[in-house]
């Protein structure tokens, strides 16, 4: 028996002209955004942990 008022499921297109929709939840933009955040954290870690102090040649014990 066919239920009344039931809308048949519709599959929305995932892409237009071969490229995915811009702001969809599984969009490439957000994947890229996540990668951007990870890259920024890595960049911050490099800034904070790479290299010694600028004045390290003046430390009082160094051998």
């Amino acid at each position, binding site marked *: 028996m066919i239920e009344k008022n039931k809308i048949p499921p519709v599959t929305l297109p995932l892409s237009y002209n071969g490229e*995915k929709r811009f702001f969809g939840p599984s969009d490439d933009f957000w994947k890229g955004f996540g990668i951007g955040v990870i890259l920024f954290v890595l960049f911050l870690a490099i800034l904070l942990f790479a290299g010694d102090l600028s004045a390290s040649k003046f430390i009082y014990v160094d051998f």
Partner: protein
Amino acid sequence: MSLNRSFALGAVTAFFGLLLLTEVLLRLTVPTGFWYERFDFSGDLTSLAELRDRVRYSAPQENRILLLGDSVLGASAIMEHRIPQGRTLTLNRFLTMGLVTQGWHSLSLGSDGMLLPDIEALSPEIAAAPPQKILLLLNFRMFSQEFNQGSKALSRNFLLADLPLDIQKKLTPDKPLSQEAQLGDELYAGMSDHWFLFREAQMAKTLWYYPSQKDFFQRLLERMVGKNESASDLMEAALKQKIASYYQPYLWDKNALPFTCLKQVLDQWAVQNHIPITIVLTPQNRKFLGEYLDLPSFQKNRKALAAFLKPYLFSGVVYEDWADRYPASSFLDHCHLTPKGNDQYSKDLVGLLSGGKQ
């Protein structure tokens, strides 16, 4: 995952958006003193831009007392000796606490390895927010032959531009810097000047890589495998070798750079600006020095310094020679004090700054 235009746009937006956000956040918070209230950046200076920030924002400008000196103010020796909570047991920290009770706000620009040309170079920067009082802790190292001329007489190259030309000429390295080194210095200075995140990251690094990156990793290793007890004798022997030249037969030359710079500092601040300056020859540990100490030079140099400073005693300068003030048990090495020693030293200094007879 497909690497298309949307993906790239997302990555670029996140990266540069966060970069911009951090920069804006730092530009808003640094001038409020937010970071200086929460973290102790004393003990090192990483750039001219940092110095300017600290002069302007790290302590209230009213009732300000400026602390100048070398590693005796900071935590390097305490941390080298693996004393827990080292940063809270420094002379600077005890002094700051003691001075607050007297209504003073201290600003410490004392840094490891600081020499008198460095201190003179601070003058134009200090002028942006002059203190009401200055405490200058002099150490034997500052007058030693090893550091009285050439490029070694200035501990931080970024301070060179703040020195008068005649002094700059005396500090020129024997061998000119390579193009790469010059470019590196210029790039570092440029980034520190214009990019807050870079500047603050260099400062933040001093919170863990202190006194050096090597020491940081050594501390980590010691936590995992335990301390090598036999290394402490080796450390002491190496330190003695390093400092031997500061105490060996050599009479301080009053025409040498350290005295020229000291004179200019006193002329500018005490004579011309009438700012009271208290100068203390910092305590020394004769027992540690043993045979490395040439006693006749030690005594003559102290007398020479007192004689040099005598004319300034009429211009609001107070000078105290405390080289023999504390017993050997108060020291960690030749001049750095134990936490208990720092506590006592700070109390004595606060008494001196308050006008008490010591």
